[in-house]
């Protein structure tokens, strides 16, 4: 059963987002909503209950006019692996409605299993998990554009970014049909990656040195996947969540905004722990 040597490495799908190129246009948010049947309601201006698997944050450098600067930061689910092998949200779910796949590195969310305790939301420091406070209602006729690849969620369950896992499934279907078991880099891309007009998002297998994400982030798997590229950082790296979304910025204040630092801390020295 164990055929040593024949094993291919498990995949670890991840993302590198170039914050220098990101324009904050919000296309990723909408591409995600359109792809994943995300519901909407009359008023979405309260961002505390507005479902956006991908949310673009606006960061400011805290300086006064005219030294002020802003930067946008798109935040999908980080698909944390966790330093100790468990992502913050997966281990807390009481009903096994979310899990971490070692095959793809993707954190799933099974809506029919979830009973809405919201513990995972409390566990996630990125606020990447959203609760369906309302039953989703589409205006008359609008259910026509719902995609059959993603099941619409009901009231009372948690949902989040899946790295468009259904696209992986569909790509695998095609691969199987063609007698393959491996995917090409461009065969599986998330909706946001594809839509980004600035081309700021790169998606692929972080374990595969041929993939662009690996080349950009240079993840060090021996040390919780921390980036080898000095311009690359991850959000809240210090918590040990081992996220799979990497950010790239040439601006130090942006990189510093990725995590908490004590005032007297030497950022350059410490930012990767």
């Amino acid at each position: 059963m164990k055929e040593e040597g024949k094993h291919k490495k498990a995949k670890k799908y991840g993302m590198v987002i170039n914050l220098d190129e990101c324009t904050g246009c919000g296309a990723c948010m909408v591409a995600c909503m359109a792809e994943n049947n995300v519901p909407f309601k009359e008023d979405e201006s309260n961002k505390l209950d507005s479902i956006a698997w991908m949310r673009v944050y606006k960061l400011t450098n805290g300086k006064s006019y005219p030294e002020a600067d802003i930067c946008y930061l798109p935040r999908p689910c980080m698909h944390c692996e966790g330093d100790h092998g468990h992502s913050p949200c997966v281990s807390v779910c009481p009903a096994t409605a979310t899990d971490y796949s070692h095959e793809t590195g993707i954190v799933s969310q099974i809506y029919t299993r979830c009973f809405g305790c919201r513990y995972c939301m409390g566990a996630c420091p990125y606020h990447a998990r959203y609760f369906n406070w309302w039953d989703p209602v589409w205006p008359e006729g609008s259910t026509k554009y719902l995609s059959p690849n993603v099941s619409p969620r009901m009231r009372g369950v948690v949902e989040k970014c899946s790295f468009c896992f259904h696209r992986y499934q569909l790509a695998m279907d095609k691969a199987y049909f063609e007698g393959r078991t491996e995917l090409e880099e461009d065969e599986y891309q998330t909706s946001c990656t594809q839509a980004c007009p600035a081309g700021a998002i790169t998606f692929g297998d972080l374990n595969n040195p041929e993939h662009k994400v690996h080349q950009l982030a240079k993840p060090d798997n021996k040390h919780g996947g921390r980036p080898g590229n000095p311009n690359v950082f991850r959000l809240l790296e210090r918590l040990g969540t081992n996220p799979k979304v990497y950010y790239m910025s040439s601006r130090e204040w942006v990189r510093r905004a990725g995590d908490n630092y004590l005032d007297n801390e030497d950022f350059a020295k410490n930012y990767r722990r």
Partner: protein
Amino acid sequence: MSTQDDKAKEVSADGVAGPIILFFILGLAASLVFGWIIFPKLLYSQKKQPIDFNHVLHVEAVEEGCESCHFFREDGSFSGIPKLEQCVDCHEDAQGEDPNEIKFVEEYVANGREVPWLVYARQPDCVFFSHAAHVKKAEMDCGTCHGHIGESEHSRVYEENRITGYSRDIWGKNISGLKKHTWERMKMDDCAECHATKEIGTDVETLPWPINWLPRPYEKQTGNQARVKTVKEACFVCHK
């Protein structure tokens, strides 16, 4: 109160035990009849397929067996029940006198209307099922899950669960939920029969485990799609 009870006890000891046992048996029998015979009839509604379809006839006429009509598209997706478009290739005009054939041509072909077939094997929306993975990759037979439908001369009655809206084929014909063959039930446990137990093409690394007689606790995934056995971490394999 206690004195009354005592009296009653005496009475029952004398001659009421008979009726009590009788009524007990009556209740038992009635509930058994209701539970095993009437309940299933109430639970499922019976629907007839719009057209009585003869699989035998068609299988004889085509060359590539099931895949002649139930084929894979180029994108790897599975076509399922054929669209009118495919039927029309042969059935532009009625072939023969069969009333079903005439109904098919007149009502559907002539009007370009799709036949609203009732799908026996329809899974709920939360399920992702890849025909490609099972038929192409794992080279499974259609019959493993679908049974001998290809040998049927008439369409079965479609039974729909009034509570869940599922086809009866999901739970299985047997109301007690027991099955003899792989195709008699299509619930999660049935998928799990292969996915959690059969180590076909396994690509996992079992962690060291000192106690050999105990089942192994946890297997670390090292490979990829190649294996069938899915451990606890694989919800997304079958769910969407």
